């Protein structure tokens, strides 16, 4: 959110926490975030079979956070050709 909207850290944390439906303090809890990332399919530390990885996860991230991610846009454009 700092990169896409120039948000300062507190604003960025609140934005992401609200979008993910969690508290700000949960953002830095590795146990909670592993579950959140697995539930939302936005990429996890240990990529098990079938879970979203790389560009797949980025599609989800872009959607969840309502941001434009350049490589996601590029991927969409490439496969639409």
């Amino acid at each position, binding site marked *: 959110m700092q990169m896409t909207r120039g948000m300062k850290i507190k604003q960025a944390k609140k934005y992401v926490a609200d979008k993910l439906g969690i508290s700000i303090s949960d953002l830095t809890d590795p146990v909670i975030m592993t579950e959140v990332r697995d539930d939302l399919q936005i*990429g996890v530390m240990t990529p098990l079979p079938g879970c979203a990885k790389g560009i797949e996860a980025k599609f989800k991230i872009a959607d969840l956070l309502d941001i434009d991610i350049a*490589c996601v846009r590029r991927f969409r454009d490439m496969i639409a050709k």
Partner: protein
Amino acid sequence: MLKIRTRYGDGTPLELSERELMADLENGTADAAECGNVPALSKEELQHLFDIFSAPYSFVSVEPGNEVVLSYDAGTLKIRRVGVNVDRIQALQIYEKLLGADSMELCHIDYSFKPIKSIVTMEQPILEQALLTTHIPLFYGAMPNLGLYSQPDGPFPNPAELLPLGKIDEAQAAYEAAAEEAVKDMLYTSEKMVTSGADGINLDTVGGAGDADFFAALIAARKLKERYPDICIELGMAGEFILGMHSELEFDGVRLAGLYPHDQVKLAQQAGVTIFGPVVNTNTSESCPWNLARAVTFVKACCNEARIPVHVNMGMGVGAVTVNDHPPIDMVSRASKAMVEICRLDGL
């Protein structure tokens, strides 16, 4: 009497008494206040630094809730520097999965925009592939490195040779010409990388060759932002104040020579920079407490002026980190904690 273990700026271990520690902290902030014409740290802030240094732990961290994000420069070449000879895409994955990076930067080992220009079509596919396999935002980064534009490495007369001969006008003209070419090179490579999907462009060690170097980066940032309004531009500095090698260059009517971080960030914002990375240089003859009090004073003033996120440079010799290839974690962690908790930083 309690002896507090710390280090000099070159990493040499040092023991200070409580009185000596507080004296170094007071002298460090006073030095920054005098040099930069910024407010010194308050008694409470100095006490906070005192508590950080006197904590009897090898590693310290922030209190929960004060965590910040980390951005990196030149990661894909630094991992090779330690002899881990992986491909750059693997290097990005190592940083993401094993080192906890929140964002990363793809870069070339010849880390300047001028040499990258001729091989940019080999760089683009690497970035495009990396973006498919990683989860974190990826920058593409390099240095303006104005020195490469001076003879014998570059096309223009060398100001370092002209200035001792008293040829001031000729040296200034050479700096201006070099800056113009550097802007073209930064734009050329950056545009290619944006087309390939880079989440951001990192202009690194800006100002390393003086005010003309800073000038070139600001112009490039402005032009890049005009062309791509949504692109993230991170601008990381090389030193704590702008060396007036040209001495008369201005950006938006402000002379660049002699600017400290709190004034540098204002111009960066005006140029369209998204994230600003100030630098404070480490003095190897002074203690880490002296250096950290000094650095925090400058960075706090910078953050007070910033409307954009600030990610202070914390690495070898900058941000009160010791001048070692592998800085000791006791000092890195103390410097990081102090920076985050006193300066209201957005990242490191």
